[in-house]
Structures are given as C-alpha cells and as structure tokens.
C-alpha cells in the first residue's frame, strides 16, 4: 500500500508534545464514544434484531460517510455505492461491534477500507479516471461559497496532485479533520506512517500553495 518507510517514533518530539497530542486525540475519540445515548440505544436495538433502529445510525452518519467515500474515490456515483455498501456491511457485522463504542469510527473505517479497495481495483485494471490535470467533475463545487471557490479549488488541486496515500491521508486530515490516530485506524496504517505521509504532503502543499498560506497575506 505504501512505499514510504515506517517512522513509528517520528511523531515523538523531544518534549513529548506529539505524544500528548496523540493522547488528546485518543481521549477525544474515546470520550465521543458514549455521548449519544440514542445512538447507544439504536445499536443495542439493532443487535437484538430491530433493523428499523438502524435508520438512526444511517441518517446520523450519512453525510460524513459519503464525504469520506467521495474523498477517496472522487466520484459521486462510486461514493454513493460505497456508502451504501459500508452501511450494509456494518449492519451485517453489528454482532461483532463492541457495545459502548462509538459507531462513527467503525463505519468510517469500513468506508475507508472499501474506498481503498476500489482504488486498488482501479489501479489493477488501469481504470483511473483522475489525473492531476483533470480532477473529476463533481457537483459539490457549485455548492461552495463564491468567494472561497477559487481558494478551495486550489487546495483541492493541491491535494489531488499528491501520490495516492498522501492524498488520502491529507484529505482525511485537512478536509475531514480527523486526527492522526483516527486516520491510522481508518486506513490500517500505523500512526507513524500517517504522520510520515502527512509530513510529505505538507511539504508539497506548502510549495504549491505558498502564495496562499506561506506569506503574510493570509
């Protein structure tokens, strides 16, 4: 999946701040676990065979799941199929889902893995639709606010120009705002590898977007 070396310890700074950040991220992920009692009840109901209770989980995580899927495959139709598949897969294996855990990270991991599988499949059969010069046409651009459209477009192009795993990690970090630990869980990479991908992506993006965020005019 990745050609980059693994830097397991790369995140640990001399003062251990990075470890502290990891800890905060983990705590945030964990504390988000049981914050929604309706979600916990819905999961319990689904586990006992009440399929209708699953609607709550689908509607709650719909937008995020579709957005993650789209970020990986860059195609609205594929993202729709992936989201659907992810929800069905999650339902089918709900028996293995740990009670009390948040549903979000689980479904995010499922959809990310499905997306990565699609990318592998595309690569294998040389059906890649996206190139750096021609990002996929999509409807969301029209929804962006007019003022920030150009800015968003440039950031988007910058992210899309990155090698695949850097692109996916950068998108999950920048656009979806997941933490390193969360991205690691979702992609199956180690946190060190996620940081490594992100560091490389950061360097390239800084180069490409120097005039946007590198100077004093931000």
């Amino acid at each position, binding site marked *: 999946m990745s050609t980059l070396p693994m830097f397991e310890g790369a995140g640990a700074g001399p003062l251990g701040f990075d470890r502290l950040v990891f800890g905060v991220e983990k705590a945030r992920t964990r504390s988000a676990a049981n914050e929604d009692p309706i979600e916990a009840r819905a999961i319990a109901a689904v586990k006992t065979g009440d399929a209708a209770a699953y609607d709550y989980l689908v509607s709650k995580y719909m937008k995020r799941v579709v957005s993650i899927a789209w970020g990986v495959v860059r195609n609205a139709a594929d993202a729709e199929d992936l989201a659907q598949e992810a929800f069905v897969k999650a339902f089918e294996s709900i028996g293995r889902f740990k009670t009390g855990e948040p549903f979000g990270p689980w479904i995010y991991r499922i959809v990310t893995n499905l997306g990565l599988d699609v990318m592998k499949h595309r690569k294998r059969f040389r059906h890649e639709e996206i190139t750096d010069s021609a990002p996929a046409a999509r409807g969301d651009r029209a929804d962006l606010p007019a003022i920030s459209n150009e800015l968003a477009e440039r950031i988007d192009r910058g992210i899309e120009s990155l090698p695949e795993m850097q692109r996916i990690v950068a998108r999950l970090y920048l656009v979806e705002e997941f933490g390193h630990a969360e991205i690691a869980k979702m992609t199956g990479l180690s946190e060190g590898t996620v940081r490594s991908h992100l560091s490389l992506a950061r360097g390239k993006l800084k180069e490409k977007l120097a005039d946007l*965020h590198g100077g004093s005019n931000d």
Partner: protein
Amino acid sequence: MTDNDNFLDRLRADARQLRFEPDEMMSTRIAARVRERIAADSQTGIAQMLARWFRPVMVSLATLALVATLGIQWAEQSHDASAASLDSMTSTQSVDISVGGDTFSVE
C-alpha cells in the same frame, strides 16, 4: 515544525469547505437502498436458517427411509430364500426302496 503545523491548521480551516455534501436525493436513495438490502438480507437469513434446520432433518429422514427399505427387502429376500431351500430340501429328499427288482420312491 510549528510553521508547518500552522500552515496545516490554516489549510484545514480553508479545506473544510471541500467536504462533499450529499444532496437530499442522494441521502434518501442511500438510506432506501440500505433499508432494502437489510430487509432482503434478513429474509435470506430466515431462509438460510430454515435450510440449516431442514437439511439435516431431511437427510436423516432419507437415510432412515433407505435403511428401512433395504432392511425390509433384505428380510423378504432372506425369508424367500429360507422358504425356497426348505421346499427344495423337502422336495428332493425322497427315499428309494428296492424290493424284488422294483424300485419304490417314498417322499
């Protein structure tokens, strides 16, 4: 490192708007398809459960029927065979008695 982190933080603030927002139609479609597939899966599940129960029961019944048929057939055959051998034994066991040049057969 800090500059870079600031750079990513600033980029994050602007990149947030790149999130894909599924429209109402897409959301409804996905939810409906998920519901449909879950329902189909649960129906398949019931059928599979029944099949899981029925298959061994049917196999057992079929085996019993086969064993019973073979048993009856074997019993009938062995009964016929014993009856036939008794008949043949009784029919062939005759005693020949010769008296004064004449032979008499007594069954």
